[in-house]
Every structure is written in C-alpha cells, then in structure tokens.
C-alpha cells in the first residue's frame, strides 16, 4: 500500500524495510519521519490529530501522484496517523526511491511540503495547562512556492 491513513501506531522499521525491499532498480531511498516532540515547556501530554475523512485519502493520493508525475521514481509512499498520539510517537512518514539521489530527495521534500499545507490534518497539543491548536507556519506555506 502506497498511501495509508492510520489511527494506530505503525512500525517505522518494518515500513522502511518493506519499502526498500519493494524497490527494483532504485539506487537511493529517502525517508522522512515526523515525531511528536514535546512542547517547549516539556509538558505535552498528548497530541490530537483531526482530519477530514474522505478528502484526506484523496489529498494523499493526489500528492503522491503529483510527485510520481514530476520525478522518475521507482516508488513513493505516504503514511499519516490521526487520533491521539503521545510524545515520541511517530506521526507520519514518507519514502521515495529513485536511481539518482537528487530526485529522491526532491520528491521527499515535495511530499512533505504538500502534506504540511495541503492535506486536511489539524494538530492540537494537550498539556497540563490546557489544549491549543498548532498554528500553521508561514514558512510551510512559503515552502510550496519553490514547486510552482
């Protein structure tokens, strides 16, 4: 499966291995993994990720298709979780494979930039002091411009 939307934790090691094993002719494989990091104050209890069922699956497929159309990849994968996550847990991962490393790196960055700002996910951080939605960062929106 090349796009997975999951509420349960996933096995980063197993996913990485399975993706690598499925590549034929690839010279380089790039992965990016997002991890729930603790709040500045070190008091994060959990992260809640809300998403838009129906649109999310479609957005992930579209983002993957756009990467495959743009670079000569032998494979591309997206995994993203929703629901409740604890500090240290893995939020998502992307993996790309290509003959030349520059293409694999560029495609992985492209997938991440679009996931950040164009896939319908919203993160909320819950600490002992209360809950707060994570603000979108201007730098994430700006990152999309380089692909246009």
């Amino acid at each position, binding site marked *: 499966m090349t796009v997975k939307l999951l509420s349960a934790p996933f096995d980063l090691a197993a996913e990485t291995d399975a993706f690598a094993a499925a590549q034929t002719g690839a010279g380089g494989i790039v992965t990016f993994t997002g991890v729930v990091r603790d709040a500045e104050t070190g008091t994060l209890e959990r992260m809640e990720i809300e998403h*838009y069922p*129906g649109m999310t699956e479609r957005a992930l497929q579209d983002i993957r298709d756009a990467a495959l159309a743009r670079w000569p990849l032998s494979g591309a994968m997206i995994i*993203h979780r929703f629901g409740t996550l604890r500090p240290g847990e893995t939020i998502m991962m992307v993996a790309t494979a290509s003959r030349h490393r520059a293409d694999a790196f560029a495609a992985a960055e492209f997938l991440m930039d679009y996931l950040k700002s164009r896939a*319908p996910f919203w993160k909320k951080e819950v600490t002992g002091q209360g809950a707060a939605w994570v603000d979108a960062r201007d730098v994430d*929106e700006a990152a999309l411009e380089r692909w246009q």
Partner: protein
Amino acid sequence: MTLDVLYFAWVRERIGLPRETLETQAATVADLVAELSAREERYAAAFADTSALRVAVDQALTDFDAPLTDAREVAFFPPMTGG
C-alpha cells in the same frame, strides 16, 4: 439547494458542531459565509476573519469566491497543519 456544511478544528469548536445540513440559495462560498454569519453570533465569530480560514467544496480546496453550483458538501477549517 441542500448542502452539507462541515467544520474542522477550532472552527468546529467555535461553531459548536462538526456538520449540519442546510437549505440555501447561496451562489458562492462568500454568500454562504454571509448567510451563516447573519444567523448567530458563534458563526459570526468563527467567520470574522476569512483570511485565517480555508474552504473546500466537494472535498477540493478552493477560494471564498468559488461558485456553489451543483455543490453538495462545503467544509470550513483553519490552515492545515499535517506532516
């Protein structure tokens, strides 16, 4: 026209419900926003600054001046924070 309207993240919290079904004659997203904002203070609060919001019509991102012709589902939410 019958429209499903969905709210996510703090828009959902501010309006106080995740989705509702409306009868509306709104021609564009902006018309729909005006109609909702006139209805109750919680809608007006949520839609006070649409530059801080995003909208999808039938699960595709679009603009606030997009037409609603043949639309079945409109969703309002803050900028996305996935990844």
